[in-house]
């Protein structure tokens, strides 16, 4: 968007993931810079979710490098690192198939996100001293403010399994934000939402970027949303990256039209 050279936050080089004989992700290069909303699109089964899983440590990639450049901290190579280490470094994610803690309340789900930023231990929790109580109170307040931001404050004490679908997706975002990331990966955040909810989501994502100073990489099938909010779009097909560019460039790219948009037009 802006002309100044933005700092790169996430740098993926030649990332490859094989499942037996299937190469789900095939030497992908991708960068996300500070203040950016990037989108990763592609037909079903293109390998987008697998890409996320490799980057966040759920899978160990079979090849390539994932580098994190936290602002003001040394660069870290994170492939093969455990997911919790990566999250603690500052990259959080949501899941395509919602993975909330269903027998916990909405607020508690967000409080889980605070785990890696707090440090009351076993003894502290049992003795419940002043420090532990203060931290607990801060966790509650932090969680509650996040819930307000995503519009779920009134459901704070509900069990998360009782939420409507769209609210669950927003709760996943709030939970990931509770880890105070500098980069947020969203896997199909608008899936299952109605048009109005999608518009609200659109605004929410922009707010997260602008107010929270958090860069965003999102996977999404809703083209309207993607074209609206993305600064950069990366297109995947059969595990390979076939294009990168601004929304306008992607719209005009014949390869993309053939592979992805064209396919959609047939359907």
């Amino acid at each position, binding site marked *: 968007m802006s002309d100044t050279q933005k700092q790169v936050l996430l740098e993926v080089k030649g990332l490859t993931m094989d499942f037996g004989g299937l190469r789900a992700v095939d030497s992908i290069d991708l960068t996300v810079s500070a203040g950016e909303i990037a989108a990763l699109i592609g037909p079903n089964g293109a390998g987008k979710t697998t890409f996320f899983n490799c980057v966040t440590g759920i899978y160990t990639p079979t090849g390539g490098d994932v580098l994190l450049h936290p602002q003001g901290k040394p660069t870290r190579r994170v492939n093969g690192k455990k997911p919790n280490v990566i999250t603690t470094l500052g990259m*959080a*994610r949501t899941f395509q198939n919602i993975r909330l803690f269903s027998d916990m309340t909405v607020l508690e789900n967000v409080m889980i996100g605070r785990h890696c930023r707090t440090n009351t231990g076993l003894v502290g929790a049992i003795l419940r001293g002043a420090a532990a109580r203060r931290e607990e109170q801060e966790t509650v307040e932090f969680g*509650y*403010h996040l819930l307000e931001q995503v519009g779920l404050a009134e459901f704070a004490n509900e069990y998360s399994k009782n939420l409507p679908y769209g609210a669950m997706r927003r709760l996943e975002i709030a939970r990931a934000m509770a880890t105070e990331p500098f980069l947020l990966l969203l896997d199909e955040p608008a899936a299952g939402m109605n048009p109005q909810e999608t518009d609200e989501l659109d605004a929410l994502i922009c707010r997260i970027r602008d107010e929270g100073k958090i860069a965003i990489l999102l996977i999404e099938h809703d083209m309207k949303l993607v074209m609206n909010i993305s600064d950069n779009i990366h297109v995947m097909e059969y595990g390979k990256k076939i294009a990168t560019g601004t929304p306008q460039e992607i719209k005009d790219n014949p390869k993309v039209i053939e592979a992805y948009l064209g396919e959609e037009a047939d359907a």
Partner: protein
Amino acid sequence: MKNLKQSLAVALWFIFLTFPLMVVKVNTSDQVVQWRWMNILWVGVTFFVLSFIWRYALVRKEARQMAALSGQDEHEKPTKFQELLEDQSLRYRLMLGLLAFALVFPWVFDTYQSTIMVSALIYVVLGLGLNITVGLAGLLDLGYVAFFAVGAYAYALLNHHFGLGFWTCLPLGAALGGIFGVILGFPILRLRGDYLAIVTLGFGMIVKVVLENWSEFSFGPSGIANIDRPSLFGLDMDIAASTTYIYYIMIALVILTIIVTGRLKNSRIGRAWIALREDEIACVAMGIDMAKTKMSAYALGACWAGMVGVVFAAKTTFINPASFTFMESAIILSIVVLGGMGSILGVILGAMILILMPEYLRAFSEYRMIIFGAAMVVMMIFRPQGIISNIRQKYEFKGLKEKSENV
């Protein structure tokens, strides 16, 4: 009408099944076969009625589920009972009442009753300890009794060889239990579900087999006798006084356990355990160290078993490996599941029911296991979440709401 028919079919089926047992009787001395046709009628009628009640209950359960589904927001409408539980003031009064009852118990009832109560209380602590591992962290442990054995043998051996007293050994037993928890915890960090269950089952077996066969260390199957009872300023106590004393020790331990597990449940650590139980992948993706969290759940659960193991040895003054069979693990696990996974009050009730009922039902001792089994089956079908389902803490945001509105 359909129900009637099916009940009839069930009744006929049971008549057929029990026919050789209930109807035919071979009188071996007279070499004649007696046919007791009346029994057919009894079996038929009994099972017809039972099956009818069964079906009726099932239908009602389904209807309730349907109602819950259609009435979206009232997904799981809390029962009257649950609502009562959430009422704070009632809860405190209830707890005070229970505490008062528990304190006067040994003076009102005789020593025999106190002894029974002590075993029930031991199981309460065992249940609450296992509740950390199974109920909160969701790690199925079929060898929990091994930690109990560790505590009991720790006290017995230390007392036998070095004359160490009860009060020194109590924390030692807890620590040893915890250490064994960590030892078991390491190899199973990567395991889940069924595999976890089998490994823990194996661990329980190993501990028992070692105790049985390593005679130089543990005195083998003959066990260790003459273990000291707990001392009170070197006073000489007769059995009755000593039982009362142990009873009060157990009450104190139960209260300690309740406070500690209650606090943990709604703390940073406790939430991490529950998150681990709910969804392992989401849990690590949210920045929780799985290895640490699993370890702490195992070690802490094992701690309590080690601790009450010491009390158990002191109470019976004699232990041998036969007290630490798989059956014990199964009973403790049943306490947790029947009472309600994760719920402290539920586990206490579960322990009381499962341990006290058999004691007071001695008259029906032949049918004890049948009643026990039937109760379990019925529970799991009609109330799989246990007697009391786990309630999560609710938070107040009065100040917070205004604060954010003013900004």
